[in-house]
């Protein structure tokens, strides 16, 4: 055990990421399960541990506008939200990406209403996948703090200059404590030099306009395409940042994280904290003789298509476990995986789509077993399946009982 590690929740790790990055400005609005992050930062700003201006705004829409505007002045900005809050700020997400302002936003995943809940799935963060924000999704509390530092370096690189979203799962990471090693401030200083943007620095004495109106399409096309190019540049910039982070802090985070892939004939694709459970399920399946592995997607935007193709080509079958549901379509990441494998000569014989863990529903050992069994069968058949909903007979019976209480049972009064 490393002496320097300490027990820390994902939310506290996120606050430490902002503190170590020595941010200048934190616009805030509370929402479960994110609130601990801004509460902690508020305490540190008040106590002087963090030399930043902490401002509470009247909504996430204002908060995200303030984050973008402050970033345009050349300040290093951190903010955080979750779920409904992210959606409330939706208009501004696209707007500030077009301003090319490099701040970091932490999203703590929580399923979306309706019906309303508190527990996680990824429909919130993936709704923002086309906003222009880069997206890094974390599996562990350690990864949360490290990813925020990487996010600033990538965002602030002149080849990118876009905001970056770091995602962590509500409850299963946000409220979960596990050992975390905080990088030394000297390491952070070496990895992430102070923010001195050449192109930003909006101030009252030198006003300029950002995100101006353009009409006619071609000018618009040029600028929107610049956002795309900046995001695509993020692939190489990400790899450089990962290499530098490993050199300085000793931990490596590739854009994709392969687990027991070497001789795997079937591969399960996952994201975020539940990928830990997926890895445990891979171990269990291997003990029973199944040659399976797991591919965790860490960098979601830009989409690391080449790395994904390299990891998945030549496999018998690939299963994508989406903790999201696009109504009328299926799993969001399944579509993207399928698209990037289409032209691959050695593409897997079967692509399988599973939808699970919605609204924080537990991904059980039995469900992982069902995934591996059905995926192997699909691989043998050479024909994919899905979307398959991970929802059990027992849950169905419980649901019927609740519907009886909600609709059929009369109070008799």
């Amino acid at each position, binding site marked *: 055990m490393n002496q320097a590690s300490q027990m820390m929740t994902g939310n506290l790790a996120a606050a430490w990421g902002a503190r170590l990055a020595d941010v200048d400005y934190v616009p805030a609005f509370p929402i479960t399960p994110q609130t601990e992050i801004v509460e902690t930062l508020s305490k540190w700003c008040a106590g002087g541990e963090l030399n930043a201006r902490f401002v509470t705004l009247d909504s996430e829409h204002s908060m995200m506008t303030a984050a973008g505007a402050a970033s345009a002045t050349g300040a290093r900005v951190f903010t955080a939200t979750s779920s409904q809050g992210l959606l409330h700020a939706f208009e501004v997400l696209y707007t500030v990406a077009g301003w090319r302002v490099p701040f970091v936003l932490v999203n703590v995943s929580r399923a979306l209403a309706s019906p309303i809940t508190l527990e996680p799935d990824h429909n919130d963060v993936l709704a923002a996948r086309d906003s222009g924000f880069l997206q890094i999704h974390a599996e562990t509390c350690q990864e949360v703090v490290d990813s925020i530092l990487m996010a600033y370096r990538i965002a602030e690189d002149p080849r990118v200059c876009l905001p970056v979203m770091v995602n962590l799962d509500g409850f299963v990471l946000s409220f979960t404590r596990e050992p975390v090693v905080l990088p030394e401030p000297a390491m952070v200083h070496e990895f992430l030099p102070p923010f001195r943007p050449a192109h930003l620095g909006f101030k009252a004495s030198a006003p300029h306009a950002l995100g101006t109106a353009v009409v006619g399409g071609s000018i618009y096309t040029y600028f929107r395409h610049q956002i795309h190019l900046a995001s695509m540049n993020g692939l190489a910039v990400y790899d450089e940042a990962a290499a530098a982070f490993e050199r300085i802090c000793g931990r490596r985070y590739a854009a994709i994280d392969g687990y027991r892939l070497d001789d795997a004939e079937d591969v399960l694709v996952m994201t975020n904290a539940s990928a830990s459970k997926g890895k445990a399920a891979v171990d269990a399946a291997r003990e029973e003789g199944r040659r399976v592995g797991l591919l965790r997607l860490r960098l979601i935007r830009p989409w690391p298509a080449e790395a994904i193709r390299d990891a998945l080509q030549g496999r018998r079958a690939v299963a994508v476990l989406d903790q999201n549901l696009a109504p009328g379509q299926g799993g969001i990441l399944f579509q993207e995986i399928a698209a990037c494998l289409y032209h691959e000569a050695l593409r897997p014989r079967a692509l399988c789509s599973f939808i699970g863990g919605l609204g924080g529903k537990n991904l059980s050992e039995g469900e992982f077993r*069902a995934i591996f069994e059905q995926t192997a069968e699909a691989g043998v058949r050479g024909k994919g399946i899905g979307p398959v909903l991970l929802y059990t007979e027992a849950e169905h019976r419980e649901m019927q009982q609740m519907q009886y209480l909600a609709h059929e049972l009369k109070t008799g009064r």
Partner: protein
Amino acid sequence: MLSIRFHGRGGQGAKTASRIVGTAAFLEGFTAQDSPIYGAERRGAPVAAFTRIAKKPIRERGLIARPDLVVVADASLIGDPSARVLDGVDERTVLFVNSPLTPDQLRARTSVSGRLTVLDLTDLALKQFGKRGAISALLGAVAGRLAGLRPESIREAIVRELTDLGLTAPVIERNQALAMQCFEAVQPVTLEPGPRAPVPSAQLRTPTYDPPTRGTAGITAGPNSAIRSVSGWRTFRPVLRPDLCNGCWLCFASCPEGAITIKPDGKPAVYYPHCKGCLDCVEVCPTDAMTVEREPEGANK
């Protein structure tokens, strides 16, 4: 890996207990992970928390489906199907229950079987502190003992976690002292972690389309909160002493459940089926007319 599941009621300290055990294990050099799960916060509502202890990195996350040790802070949770106290419990699982009953009485009154340890932590806390309060340090010490952790690390973990909650040094010392008494009072057991029998493949069933009247989240059965009793949530109940009541109605105004009504004589009355035992009324009462009584175990509340 050792998996410990805590069940309590909001305000009892189950989450902090899970952290005390996590921190103590961490201090002993283990890899630890702890996490709570709860809905919109309500005092008295069922809460669960989980601590995992291992010598290697922990790959499990979220709820513990098959615990080695279950710590129950309030025995009335055992009979509450929504609390799922006995889920995944098998003959190897050790159960600790905070209760004044004997193990045999508990077995007779609940569906608990197997390996059971019982101690009345609430009574110890009442006698020692003279008033009700969270029993997180006590639960943590008992769980730590059963998990085979050392007393020094538990003492230190209690200081760290209760300091983190903003408690003062004298309060922490009192908790620590009583926690160590509880630690000694519980007989160590041999936990049997290790691989359980493999779980069969999940029997999946995709729901079919239902008409929107049924397939939309909503309730059409009419107001039913009136028939929903939350009596079982109480570990303590407020009891009015009319002779001390000045009729200020602060208790009536502060009750989050609307369980306090005003009688024609201007004095409040508690409607117990809707009282969840948060005791906000006791806190606000300026004349100490609202007193506190411990709920008798297994009684018809």
